[in-house]
């Protein structure tokens, strides 16, 4: 069995509906952002992903996470 890592996953705006605000979750080492998006059940067809951040820095879906990081997921949002 692959070694596990702890990731804090935070969801925002519409992504919170029926899910959670913030959770400590375990993933196999080497998991990508894409993997977590699927695991959390984000349907990009229904509501496109706007911004992904790891520890407050923008990342792409192929980003490989490390133990203890904070992963934040936003749909397209704006304001001013």
């Amino acid at each position, binding site marked *: 069995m692959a070694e596990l890592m702890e990731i804090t996953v*935070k969801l*925002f*705006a*519409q992504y*919170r509906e029926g899910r959670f*605000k913030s959770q400590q979750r375990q993933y196999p080492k080497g998991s990508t952002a894409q993997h977590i998006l699927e695991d959390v059940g984000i349907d990009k067809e229904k*509501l*496109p992903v*706007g*911004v992904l*951040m790891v520890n*407050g*820095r*923008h990342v792409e879906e192929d980003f490989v996470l490390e133990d203890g990081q904070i992963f*934040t997921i*936003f*749909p*397209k*949002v*704006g*304001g*001013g």
Partner: protein
Amino acid sequence: MSDKIYRVNMSNLSFKIEDVPQDWMGLGGRGLTSTIVAAEVDPECHPLGPNNKMVFAPGLLSGTSAANSGRNSLGAKSPLTGGIKESNVGGTIAGVMAKLGVKALIIEGMPEDDSTFYHIHVTKEHIEIERVPELVGKDNYFVLDSMLEKYDKKVAVMSIGRPGEMKMLISNISVKDPKGKLRSHGRGGLGAVMGSKKIKCITVDAEKFNEASASIVDMEKFKAASKVFTKALKDNPISGEGLPAFGTNVLVNIINEAGGLPTRNFRSGYSDNAENICGETMAENIKARGGSTTHGCHAGCVIQCSQTYNDKEGKYLTSGFEYEMIWAFGANLGIRDLDQIAKIDALMDDLGLDAIETGVTLGLAVDAGLIEFGDGDRAYEILKYEVSKGTHLGRIIGSGAGNLGKLYGLVRVPVVKNQSIPAYEPRAIKGQGVTYVTTPMGADHTAGYAVATNILNSGGHVDPLKKEGQVELARNLQIASAAVDSTGMCIFVAFPALDEPACLPALIDMINARFGTTLSIDDVMNLGKTILKTEHEFNLNAGLTKHDDRIPEFMKYEALPPHNVTWDFTNEEIDAFWDF
């Protein structure tokens, strides 16, 4: 019907209706206000003296059925920055002026007898100027209600509260919205300019004049373009979904997570208070208490980012409850209770106070020992009993952050050109910082919203913590914003415009259909460039130099958590902004 220039001279209480000079024909909104201010106002004049002017102009598409076209521009020399100012507002004023054929309303001079205040009433080819001693010392809702009682309910109303009468630099001009609530011509202390001219309120009445909307040369073409434009606004996930559901306050969390939410007077880019005050919490409260997440600040808005917000008992607290306000009092001043911030918001609407300037000044007042972080009761009291009455403390807060900083010998003073920095940390969102230092308006987020590309991934992505590409980004956005601010469009059409290819051409088609012109995208962008250069030149002649295009020095040596970043641009890099 051809549009006219309506001109009021407060020195002798007279008015004139003039033809529009050829050079001003193709201009509207900010393009027109900045052109007129540059042409007619001595840049060296005292902004509160007889030689400053106020220029109100609806956008090129205001008064038509085009979605989100009801924004009005106000231009003048700012008493806060000492430079040119354009302030943009929703509400009903732009549509009503455009329908009446008012291309611009120019107010000049100042009464010699300054013992009372006046009411200006604009109707078709006529203006009444009346003394209103009964309104002196009253605030905006009192004035609004008396005007609605006096005239048809659809009359447009603009007014100042007591802080504006006292010429405070944190004062706004309030504008009636379609539901009888208030929006603001904010920033730059323009309420003080209206106060200096002894004008308590301005009403514009188009009802007795039966032109249904502003004139349009090619109606078929206009309708077709308008359809494409509205669809682009509705299909875009930000303008079509995010803004209506959560309002502008949805930004609290994303700006905070990115480490760019100015906290405790710009000491950190991360606030532990975000969850209490964020758009998600606000939307939950609205759902639980009744109220509405969608509300347009003017008729014809299809985005509806505004809302009405009730207290726990379901009683109305405030509307137009925006991100900037909630940031200023929630993250920067540390108030943890959203309802308390809403209560302050309603009070500030009534008094006519600028949310950003007032909030930043109160944040700084903590460093001056005048209030403590998180003390919402004290903040409310200061505004309600000190600022409104012009006590000594009220005057100090009322003079804005830059002046308070000087009075108390403070160094961490977040202003550019003496105007408070809004809700995006320039050290951590560097493109936005470039806009703050270079825009002729003083620190202003709407002048070139680089947050879109630095943080929100609209129009691509430019790394917010790095210098690369930021000056070019800020320049392009400022040029586009100057153009958009001339159309009468709300700035949030920028999101679909950045990402939906059909949006911008449709906007230009609507302008061409209305005026029978053949403008291209390049023409419109050139207009944006000309506007910026006109404004910049006014500032240079007013005595502002490139040395005013600078970030507060503390941001160069105090590293901002959580990313521990400083402002690292060289002066040469910033000055290159103007190479176009």
